[in-house]
């Protein structure tokens, strides 16, 4: 593998997103949402203003779990199929570059743009709030940012996989939306439904493991379990064994969610 080729492709994808202000727009969305949530998140209880980092992170997690998968899927779904459909893929592949280098470069460039937006957007909020955050709160907030980046990477990897598997852009976009619905909206409902139908008698033991099959759930557990207040708030502590909630284990699962779709994508693209 020639890293310079990967870097050339990644650099182009990244700078494309900087130049067309994609990075700026997404970062602004994150900043605005995070500020609104931090200051008005408790408005329902009749109070405004920043309250606690736990509540803020819990609210942000609920938002990010919808938003980041969507942004990542939209960002990546046409990575390969778009080049193919426009007709620029053949020229690219006639260059001294392997298909693996191309797909890895595409992924890293887009991932860089998404990570940069995420860190800049939420980082700005951390700066604004810094006067009201102690070291422990900052630590948790950075954990939230890091896991948000991982969540984006995982869904971006899924998107790039779709962009290799789909025959055209229309199908790729349809699959991307379907994937978002499945992981973000349907998956948990299905699990809950199964649990209720069986009266909780079967599958109770494998239920936590099944949650690992959804990167969005992994992200949720990763954030919520590091905060004691939030854990009780969500009532998740009752169903999820602490032994599984090790941050390193969850991070490893997330990395698996990044590597596996990319692996499938490059295997399929190489054929």
């Amino acid at each position, binding site marked *: 593998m020639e890293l310079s*080729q990967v870097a050339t492709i990644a650099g182009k994808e990244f700078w*494309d997103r900087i*130049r*067309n202000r994609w990075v700026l727009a997404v970062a602004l969305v994150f900043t605005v949402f995070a500020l609104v949530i931090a200051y008005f998140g408790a408005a329902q209880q009749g109070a405004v203003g920043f309250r606690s980092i736990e509540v803020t992170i819990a609210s942000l997690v609920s938002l990010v779990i919808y938003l980041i998968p969507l942004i990542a899927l939209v960002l990546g779904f046409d990575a390969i199929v778009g080049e193919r459909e426009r007709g620029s893929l*053949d020229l690219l592949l*006639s*260059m*001294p570059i*392997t298909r693996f280098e191309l797909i890895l470069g595409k992924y890293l460039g887009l991932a860089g743009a998404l990570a940069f937006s995420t860190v800049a957007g939420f980082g700005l909020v951390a700066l604004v709030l810094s006067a009201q955050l102690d070291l422990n709160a900052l630590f948790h907030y950075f954990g939230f940012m890091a896991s948000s980046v991982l969540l984006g990477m995982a869904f971006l990897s899924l998107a790039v996989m779709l962009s290799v598997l789909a025959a055209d852009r229309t199908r790729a976009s349809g699959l991307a939306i379907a994937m978002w619905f499945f992981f973000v909206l349907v998956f948990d409902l299905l699990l809950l439904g199964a649990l209720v139908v069986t009266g909780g008698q079967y599958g109770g033991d494998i239920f936590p493991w099944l949650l690992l099959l959804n990167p969005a759930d992994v992200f949720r557990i990763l954030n919520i379990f590091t905060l004691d207040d939030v854990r009780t708030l969500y009532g998740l502590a009752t169903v999820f064994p602490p032994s599984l909630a090790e941050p390193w284990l969850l991070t490893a699962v997330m990395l698996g969610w990044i590597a596996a779709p990319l692996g499938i994508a490059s295997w399929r693209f190489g054929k």
Partner: protein
Amino acid sequence: MESTIQAAAEAANADAVVRVRGASKHYGTVRAVDGVDLAVQRGELFGLIGHNGAGKSTLFKMMLGLIPATAGEIAIDGAPVTGSGFRAVRRKIGYLPENVVLYDNLTGLETLHFFAKLKSVPAAGCGALLERVGLAHAAGRRVREYSKGMRQRLGFAQALLGRPQILFLDEPTTGLDPEAIREFYVILRGLRAEGVTVIITSHILAEIQERVDRLAIMASGKVQALGTVQALREEMDLPLWFDVRVADSDFTAVRDALGSLPVAAIEAHDGRVAVQVRRESKMAVFAALATLGERVLDLHVREPSLEDVFFGFSD
């Protein structure tokens, strides 16, 4: 004698830059490319012509290793196109795809810089390349604002990055005006003089016929004919036309002079007489017309065009 010819052919084949042996590409029951054998020599300007769907673009992509062959072997500069050693060969190849698509958001110069990086070519030469294809004035403009012809020129500049030894040009003159087409062939002749091998497809047969060293006519995924334009004309044995202008538009005089010579067709229009004869009667017809002496005001022989040859082979 025969064995010497065969040995010479094999020696030439061994020196071929592009070697295609029994290459096929099947999509289900469709045989897009069907058992093609080709050898293009170093420094040759080689034309590939055929109808849409004849298989030439598929063959092109197979030669570039973009589409894997169902059967057969393709090697460029001795390296199999599907092998791991082909990356090194790619650095020596320039490719201009049909209807080249570049990145709208990049400027002309940025486009060349991007491809130069992928080819490990110093960016310093990019400006000169733009100059060479007549795009120096538009170097800083985005490709989005380029006309079709300008995109084609930029695509050509891209193909010339890093002084390639083998050029694959798929319909390179599409969208170019006549002057640009002439400039394009001037550049191409210069490259051939430097020993660059060029493989070119075109559907404008009149444009290609005077310019290629050899050509292959493809139809239904097969090479139907292969050789110089003249050799193909002779092989097809197509009739040629004599256009004669005689004093007083005397049609009868011409017919009488031809006497019993085998004439395929004879017609008169605009004061001229057009006579179609078989190739072997060419000199006899000349002699017969010479008997008319000074009554012949003008004489012109029309060889069958590449188009005639093409339709002869592909029908």
